[in-house]
């Protein structure tokens, strides 16, 4: 039946392999991510929620130093490079990525408890590589995931800091180490052995992956100089502690904006760690008051009611979701089975309270339509839980992104997402990450009480270990 064109086409059949980055989360369940980001910028500028371990800042500076030098030797014949362009950045990253992953391999090999509880993006693939279960070429990654690691990996997590914290990279370009970055790299240099002089050799040049496997002794010796356990942040030893402190909080030698950002970070840490608040909204209210003198600082004034509303919204969604999961897949589910559960009743009460607070406190500030819309719907539902559920469902459908939630048809509730899908993610405001860095930098000695027992559920390590 089939004719041959004379040109041999590419043909194959296949089974679908699992995707590596398989955390199932509802990324932005209430459509409030952009607002949360804006508020986080006022609280902890120059960082992201993923900038959570100061050790990685030191390590990534070290990795940048080595990869930049290797790139210069092998790709530019040691020419001077006035600035780093797109093509150059791509090439440098190709030299950097194996170092990131070899540090993850080193951590898995050397740390206790299989290195759990640390920020190790891609650890699942690397474990497979170490156990020789997954492909050798790219540390166990499929080609597309390896490509995406630029954004999902360590460098992607710390790029904002490398560009924003003064002195880490030249002109904030994120690639060439500045004076402070070089000092941080030197700290790591004293902990590990890696070839630092690179020369072109005759014959075929090794790929960056093979080159670093040969020249970075990643598996050598015993060491506890590794990415740290996130739950129990500890003050670093000198000089790493002082360098991190300079990067985050020093105002001297910085330009106007960088200096103001450092001052804001420090003021927020000081305010946070003197607070006895036990919840995030209380803590944010305390910080806003402290920073504003007599009355809350205008740009942070809505943070507390916003956080309360967002947390309550996500809390109600997750309470309903947990109740549906508790039905063990028995369908159909009567709405009363879910909405009459104590935990769900409590969560909707909290949501109503948070909406009432938002309505009263937000009216003197600029309108934030997404929060206003949720508030209006929840308050219009009054104390009727079925209507409150509908209000939340409608808001989620209209504004939310990511995995879908539950659907109400008549009096029947149906899960729209796979039943084993994850919970909706809480909105974060970088404060937890900032406080952890501050402890490591010796700027404070304790995490605010409001973060005790907080879950690291949406962090990289958990993501990369979860299988779907």
């Amino acid at each position, binding site marked *: *039946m*089939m*004719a041959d*064109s004379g*040109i041999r*086409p*590419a*043909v*194959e*059949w*296949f*089974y*679908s*392999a*699992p*995707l*590596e980055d398989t955390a*199932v989360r509802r990324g932005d369940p209430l*459509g409030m*991510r*952009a607002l949360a*980001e804006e508020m986080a910028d006022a609280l902890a500028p120059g960082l992201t*929620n993923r900038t959570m371990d100061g050790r990685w800042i030191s390590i990534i500076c070290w990795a940048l130093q080595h990869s930049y030098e290797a790139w210069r030797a092998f790709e530019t014949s040691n020419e001077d490079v*006035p*600035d*780093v*362009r*797109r093509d150059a950045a791509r090439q440098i990253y190709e030299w950097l990525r194996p170092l990131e992953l070899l540090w993850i391999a080193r951590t898995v090999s050397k740390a206790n408890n299989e290195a759990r509880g640390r920020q190790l993006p891609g650890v699942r693939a690397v474990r497979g590589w170490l156990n020789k279960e997954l492909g050798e070429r790219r540390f166990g990654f*499929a*080609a*597309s*995931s390896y490509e*995406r690691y*630029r954004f999902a990996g360590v460098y*992607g997590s710390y*790029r*904002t800091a490398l*560009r*924003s914290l003064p002195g880490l*990279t*030249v*002109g*904030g*370009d994120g690639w*060439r180490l500045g004076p402070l970055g070089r000092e941080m790299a030197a700290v790591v240099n004293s902990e590990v052995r890696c070839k630092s002089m690179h020369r072109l050799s005759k014959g075929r040049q090794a790929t960056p992956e093979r080159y670093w496997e040969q020249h970075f002794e990643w598996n050598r010796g015993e060491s506890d100089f590794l990415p740290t356990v996130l739950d129990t942040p500890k003050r670093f030893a000198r000089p790493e502690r002082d360098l991190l402190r300079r990067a985050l909080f020093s105002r001297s030698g910085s330009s106007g*904006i960088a200096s103001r950002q450092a001052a804001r970070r420090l003021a927020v840490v000081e305010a946070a760690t003197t607070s006895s608040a036990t919840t995030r909204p209380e803590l944010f209210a305390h910080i806003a008051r402290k920073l504003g003198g007599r009355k809350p600082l205008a740009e942070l004034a809505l943070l507390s009611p916003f956080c309360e509303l967002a947390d309550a919204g996500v809390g109600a969604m997750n309470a309903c979701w947990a109740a549906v999961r508790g039905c063990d*897949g028995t369908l159909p589910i009567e709405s009363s089975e879910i909405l009459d559960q104590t935990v769900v009743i409590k969560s909707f009460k909290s949501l109503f309270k948070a909406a009432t607070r938002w309505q009263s406190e937000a009216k003197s500030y600029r309108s934030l*339509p997404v929060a206003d*819309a949720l508030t209006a719907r929840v308050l219009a539902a009054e104390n009727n839980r079925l209507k409150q559920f509908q209000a939340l469902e409608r808001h989620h*459908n*209209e*504004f*939310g*992104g990511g*995995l*879908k939630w539950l659907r109400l048809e008549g009096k029947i509730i149906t899960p729209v*997402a*796979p039943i084993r899908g994850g919970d909706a993610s809480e909105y974060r405001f970088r404060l937890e990450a900032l406080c952890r860095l501050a402890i490591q930098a010796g700027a404070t000695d304790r995490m605010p009480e409001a973060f005790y027992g907080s879950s690291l559920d949406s962090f990289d390590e958990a993501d990369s270990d979860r*299988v*779907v």
Partner: protein
Amino acid sequence: MIRGTSPGWKPLTALADDAGGRGRLLGALLTTFDPPDPSSLIEDYFPAWFGLKNSYGEEGEDRLRYFAELESFLRRLKGEITIVSTAGEIATSAEAWIWNYIRRFEVGALAPAVQHAKLWMFHRAPASFGQRETLELVISSTNLTRDGLRGQIQAGWRCVVQLENRASDARRRSWGVLPEFLMEMRKSCGASGDKPMSRWLALLSRCNPPADTTFIASVPGIHTEKSLRREQTAWGIAGIKATWLGRSRPRVTAITPTIGRWTSKSLLAWAQLAGVEVGRISVAWVGERHPWAGRWQLDPSTEVTLSRSGIRWLELARPFSGDWNSPLCDEHQEADLRWSHAKLYELRDGPKTRLLITSANLSQAAWGAPQANGALSIKNFELGVLIKQQQSLSDRLMEGEFARATSEVIRQELAEQPIAWLAASWDGETITLECRPTAETNLAPYVEISIARRKSVSKTAVTWSNEPVCIAKIVWPRCSGVPILLRVLSTTGDARTTAVSDLRPDEDPQILCSEFEEADLREAMEVLREERYGYIPAADDSVDGIPNGTPGGEHAIAAGDYAVPAYVDARRRFSLIDNWWRELSSADDRSRRFILEDGRQIEARWRAAARSITDKGLRLAALVAVDELALRLGKSK
């Protein structure tokens, strides 16, 4: 690369990883059972298909850049991506803006139909100068849903063929049933589906399929014995029968996660039409304790019927039960929590063994129910491909008695929704609505329209025509906003939402992704446009709030460097112009339009930015570059 015998093991988002350079995507046809999940498209499929440089991120600048790049690509591909599914609700969500750029169709415009085929076709530009356009086909078991991507194991077949410049009937015929399958689907999508679907038929006329490949398809309807005898319309089980050589007693082994309801009589009639004895049919299934048991569907009465009819059961090994061997392939791990959604049939005909990779479950809805007059009644669109196979699937399956997993399956006979089929399009002046309600449904005299970047929904009166497919027109000028979703209601409160196809030929100035401020997205798009041609402003520009499109000033020069900033900046700008010119000179007609537009946009941006540069030298450098760009734009006419 020909891999006819052993399967690859690839993530669905990386099917082309080893295929070398791919040309720019010019268009795609995607079919799915469930309506597509926009999150999966945005987060996973689009970056892979479009070859985006940025990756989906959860927060910060990366996220903004990702969405800016994504929307830029979608704008360029507006109307070139077509997705066909079974009739179903399109959810309102923050991601619904993408539907403005994509043509969405559901089957069933004329009569009830289920779209169950999973066909992806990608039309790509030449990978490099002098090469040809390509057509990539993927036929698999994958629906465009999150579970389809992450929760299930799929089987698929993929080929990439080069397109000739001229079309011919002979080439089109060489694709067997596939062109006729697309024509039937085109009819089922309604009048508005005509043009987008015809493009793919035209492409099949410009290429031949790989050798030793046969397509097996089903289309809904009652098909006469005569039409089933024609090669191009041998639908369903008639397609299987047509492949037997007739020299031996063939055997069939099926591995599918769903088995429809069968009686002894229907099974016998079906087997006769298929040209295979019931006793020579083997079915692979899972035992009661297998982790896939809750997913694979077989009702107890059918299990009894099949067993009594003499079907041979083969067991799929249960993970962590001793000496486990994957029923699929070596790469498949015991700890893989996904369940198999693959639909595979091994056909043995004497010494010849072939493998059918398809969307069709072992059901009469998929393969057809034989009628007394020799006709075949089919409910679903299904598509599969038959390839040569040397290794036997049966080698990975276990023989012997086992307790099969069964569950009471609630099968909804094809009960149509009150609003059975729906389509909407907008040409910049009028929204045209087409709707097929069931006989007993009356449509409400109003609809609800969701508009891009607006939170409220517009309730608008409509007058429906009195035909089987009701039509309504709504005057909707551009100043009313870009309509994204449209909700039609019945007088009894039933409702359906569909995406509005934007048929305007020109680019809308509005950026639709509502997660970010329009100005921020526009700025990020401009920066990406410059980066595409190799111009990168100094990295700290955005950090210090200097508007982009301006030089990096003192930051662009490292301390201790004697370079003159104006020269450095001029060199960077001229380098962009050279890169842009080079791309323009080697572009095909289709890309040329976009590259020229890029040049115009960059010129306007630089000209505006030059006005705000205070340093005389830098300003002059910028203006010289702008003049050069303008000159070349003039030349390109």
